[in-house]
């Protein structure tokens, strides 16, 4: 699954640690999501979407063939 988390984070000038604290996970989790090595659970995706005031599908989307 692709995502634009690092772009949104840069726009808001949040560090990985800041975002991790806002959504109550570890910095390692945010790093793994950004590097597309880990797909977040639905509750976590919803929390991230809420932080950036966007819909989940605007941040996370399937890779186009």
């Amino acid at each position, binding site marked *: 699954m692709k995502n634009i988390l690092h772009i949104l984070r840069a726009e808001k000038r949040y560090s990985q640690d800041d975002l991790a604290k806002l959504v109550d996970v*570890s910095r390692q989790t945010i790093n793994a999501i950004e590097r597309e*090595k880990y797909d977040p659970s639905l509750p976590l995706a919803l929390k991230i979407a809420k932080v950036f005031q966007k819909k989940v599908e605007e941040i996370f989307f399937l890779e186009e063939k």
Partner: protein
Amino acid sequence: MKAQLKKFSFPYKTGVLIFSAVMIFSPLVIFTIIGIDNITEINPIVGRLILLIPALFAAIGFIYCTLGYHFQILRGDELKLRIHLEALNIAFTTSLVFLFALIFVFINFFPTQLNYLLIYLAGIGIIAYELGVIFVNRKYK
């Protein structure tokens, strides 16, 4: 009961773990200091108690730590839970493979070793879990 367990924070886990580890080996130290022959000949019941009481404390301690770490992982970070589950999967598969292999080897070549099968498997399971955590951690770095 389950809800209460989920709320309980299981404090002093590391301390309890160290205490349990000390307890499980304490009979060895006590027997070495006093002398195992003295105890078993003079008062065998005391000898039994020296084995039983530390073993009881150690068992309670290890159960406390197991439950504590279980709920800590469940309440904690979701990536850590994922790493834990994947490592458990590796440990379980490894243990199962070794179970069948060891049964075959022990039945045919070392029948007396069958008595210690569970101890071997516990050791293999713990090592496989630790290696699994290292391996899976690399995947998400």
